């Protein structure tokens, strides 16, 4: 790996247990800053579980235990002194199904900056909302309907609204868990195009079942199988010349 590129996330020997069941087995990985990394692998391989260790979303699951260390931007996020609220602003998340709040488009985006105290006036908040909607490629479609409900948007627009909501609190990292699986090909293309744009400012980690999506959008790809990180490297290498036979079999559609 290129030593000059800074790793904003450093995971060392991370294991995750659900009760007695070990879902992630001693995974070590470094995620490059301002790049897109894709986690791929068959269902149940642990890729989503591993993604959720990066902003402590697994904390909400009972009997979930984590070993090893996850360093985000120099901070051990599992240190007892860490407050998860600012952590989850720093490491935002976009989910499989767009989940806007049942509020106006404006309020969906303004909510985060407001609770994190990022705006000192209404006009400042307006600016943040506009910037976030522009950043998520939704401004032109939403500018004249900011007071309409976010749930009235199309699926693709709702997902971009969720991205706007995430970037409004100025995260460093955006975790995306199957962000396009509920979208049609056009909405998917818009999100993928947006991801490349967002990667200029943010570090993006995406879990996807679509191998083609991983190949299209990411610079790095990590292949997980049965809780193990099998292979991690440049996306072009992984898809053209995978080193591990398990990776080869998976991306070629030979194992499920």
């Amino acid at each position, binding site marked *: 790996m290129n030593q000059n590129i800074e790793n904003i996330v450093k995971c060392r020997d991370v294991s995750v247990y659900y009760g007695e069941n070990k879902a992630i087995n001693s995974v070590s990985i470094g995620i490059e800053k301002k790049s897109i990394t894709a986690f791929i692998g068959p269902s149940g391989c642990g890729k989503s579980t591993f993604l959720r260790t990066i902003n402590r979303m697994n904390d909400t699951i009972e009997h979930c235990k984590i070993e090893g260390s996850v360093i985000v931007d120099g901070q051990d996020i599992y240190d007892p002194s860490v407050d998860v609220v600012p952590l989850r602003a720093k490491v935002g998340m976009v989910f499989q199904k767009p989940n806007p709040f049942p509020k106006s488009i404006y309020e969906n985006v303004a909510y985060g900056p407001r609770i994190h105290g990022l705006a000192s006036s209404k006009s400042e908040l307006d600016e943040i909302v506009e910037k976030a909607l522009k950043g998520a490629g939704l401004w032109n479609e939403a500018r004249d309907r900011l007071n309409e409900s976010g749930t009235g948007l199309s699926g693709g627009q709702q997902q971009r609204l969720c991205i706007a909501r995430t970037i409004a609190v100025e995260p460093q990292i955006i975790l995306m868990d199957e962000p396009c699986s509920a979208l049609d090909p056009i909405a998917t293309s818009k999100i993928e195009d947006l991801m490349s744009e967002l990667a200029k400012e943010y570090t993006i980690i995406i879990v996807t079942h679509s191998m083609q999506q991983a190949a299209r959008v990411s610079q790095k790809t990590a292949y997980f199988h049965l809780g193990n990180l099998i292979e991690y490297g440049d996306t072009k290498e992984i898809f053209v010349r995978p080193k591990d036979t398990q990776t*080869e079999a998976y991306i070629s559609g030979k194992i499920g």
Partner: protein
Amino acid sequence: MTREHINSAFDDDLSELDTLITKMGSLAFSQFIAVTDGMANEEANLKSLIKNDKKIDQLESEIYNKTVEIIAIRSPQANDLRRIITAPKIATFLERIGDYSKNIIKRREFMIAEDSDLHILQKLNDISEIARELLTDVLDALGRLDSKKAKLVWEGDVELDAQHSVVYKRIYRRMVEKGSSPAEINALFIAKNIERIGDYCTSIAEQIYFIEHGKMLDEERPKIDFKI
């Protein structure tokens, strides 16, 4: 063929592509064998073989179509992708090999029309034999995706080049000593056609190597200096 992919229709597609390449390879091969077997024999009717070249061309076009279809529908990756992307290239090389056999027939027909003695073509028996071996081996390596054997072909072409150089010099000297005749000029052209078939065998060998290793052979291929 054993089932490899979860989607068995993908295996069927790959198998169909392999069959087309095998068919094209055996047609190009049998054409070259028939042409080199009969070329020095005045009794042999090779003209009737020209029509086989159309079948070889037709297969090239089928391989192109099948390749585009598989890429569009199956989105192949890694080794599969390399295997598929090299198919039309290999088909083009086989088509060229077919063309050289056809050129030999045409050149020989020209010699017959000129009333030339075809026995001069016996001097090409050695290079024909080497070219046949190279073609046999490269088609075998292709069928089994055996890059070690492919590399031996890639290295072995130097022998054909060396023997071609010997034959060329022999005919050339005779032309200098006894004055040139159309038969000798035509024999030199045919010798060159046979030598070019060896070159295409090395090109196919390079593709086989690429399929297995994901990179082109980056060594210097053994070569001889061609001097008269």
